[in-house]
């Protein structure tokens, strides 16, 4: 019985993958390097809240927010992606993360989320992202798009005026 297996092995030839001398296949669902899209981020910081590994860092400055994710602490669980309503964060299939020690602290994904002045009062604020607006106002229109560039206070006033 066992000799049969050996004979079959001999005839079948190696089952070894080409990698590292050739390309390796990667499934589409693979959870690898994290990518951050600052233009979609609403700075709700849910990703930081759900991150068990303490890999996400937000740094608040007067003119915006700086997002940093360190791949050397990230466990690639994908919770940040799962809980991000704005879909600003997602895990790519890139697994080529090995690096020399000198680059240890460079293994980051970062993004700058700038505050913009409110079109009405000029106060610095974070414009709401389109998906979030769609979620909140259940629709898509020019008017809603305009609301996006207002600070929450002005938005409230505007919405109140519209309703009355």
């Amino acid at each position, binding site marked *: 019985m066992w000799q049969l297996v050996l004979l079959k*092995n001999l005839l079948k030839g190696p089952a070894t993958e080409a990698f590292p001398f050739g390309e390796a296949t990667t499934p589409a669902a693979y959870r690898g390097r994290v990518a951050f899209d600052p233009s979609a981020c609403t700075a709700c910081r849910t990703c930081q809240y759900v991150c068990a590994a303490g890999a996400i860092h937000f740094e608040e400055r007067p003119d915006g927010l700086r997002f940093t994710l360190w791949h050397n602490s990230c466990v690639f669980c994908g919770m940040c992606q799962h809980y991000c309503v704005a879909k600003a964060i997602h895990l790519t299939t890139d697994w080529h993360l090995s690096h020399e020690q000198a680059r240890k602290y460079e293994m980051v994904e970062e993004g700058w989320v700038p505050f913009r002045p409110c079109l009405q009062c000029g106060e610095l604020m974070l414009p709401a992202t389109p998906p979030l607006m769609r979620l909140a106002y259940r629709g898509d229109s020019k008017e809603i798009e305009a609301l996006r560039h207002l600070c929450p206070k002005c938005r409230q006033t505007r919405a109140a005026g519209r309703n009355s």
Partner: protein
Amino acid sequence: MPETLKLIFQVLVFPGGLFALCLGLCLKGFERRIRARLQRRVGPPLLQPFFDLAKLARKDTTIPEGAPACLFSALPFAGVCSMAIAAAMIPITGVHLAPAGLGDILVLFYLLAIPAIVLMLAGSASGSPFSAIAFSRELSIMMAYEGPILLVILTIAIRVGVSQGGWIALSLNDIIAYQQRYGAFLFDPVMWPALLAFLVFFPANLGVAPFDIPEAESEVLDGPLLEYSGPLLGLFKMMSAMKAGVVIGLGIALFYPNAPGGALGLMCFVLKCFVVSSLGVAVLRTSMGRMRIDQAFRFLVIWPGILGLVSLVVVLWRY
């Protein structure tokens, strides 16, 4: 004087020393490739054993605390030397005759025990408890196969000796000459029990599955060599490579030495070595696991013992 020079050449370069080393390493590289193929792998480059040695030559050597430094470093040299001499004693039909100055088959047989003894001493010199276990295992395996294999040699020696009109022939050259004239023992059913017994001796002596117990990685780490590193470890690797060549060569001389002379004879010899090592060693290693030491001891005492006795009785009765 030229006799002595010739002897030194035989021990150091051909067929001992350098030749045996290269042959042993090539056999090992080839065997690893075959084994990989049987396991559906690509395996290492053919020259991998050479690379390993080259690398070991450049590594640091550490001597464990409390170990007798002199003995610790002298042992591998002793092992390599014994194998170089043993290799010079293996006749290659039509190419090389065993030099009478070195002794007969019994001397060779005891030379073959030296690597095991060296390993045992190496184990006890390192002072690790695992090495101690490896020591006792090596010893019991050796004790188990020593007796039966003497029976096999006796059988052959008597058969050849009787044909010469004497009682016993201990010269390997005579054994070869006999087979050249009357046909190889491999094809003689009378000798098959002895052959089988020798086939069991093979893996037991070389430490190949199912008898790789002293070096069982999962039980006693790397056995006696646990504490060795760098060039000294390299010497041990050389020793075991040469030993493989010697044991296989001995097998060929005892059972199937027939070959034409000259360069063709040398090629025949090398080819036979490769066949034995790929068919025997590689297949054995891939097709079974390891025995427990008590099982191995029992197996080694009983089966080759019975087979050896049978062949001895048959030979005594027929000739």
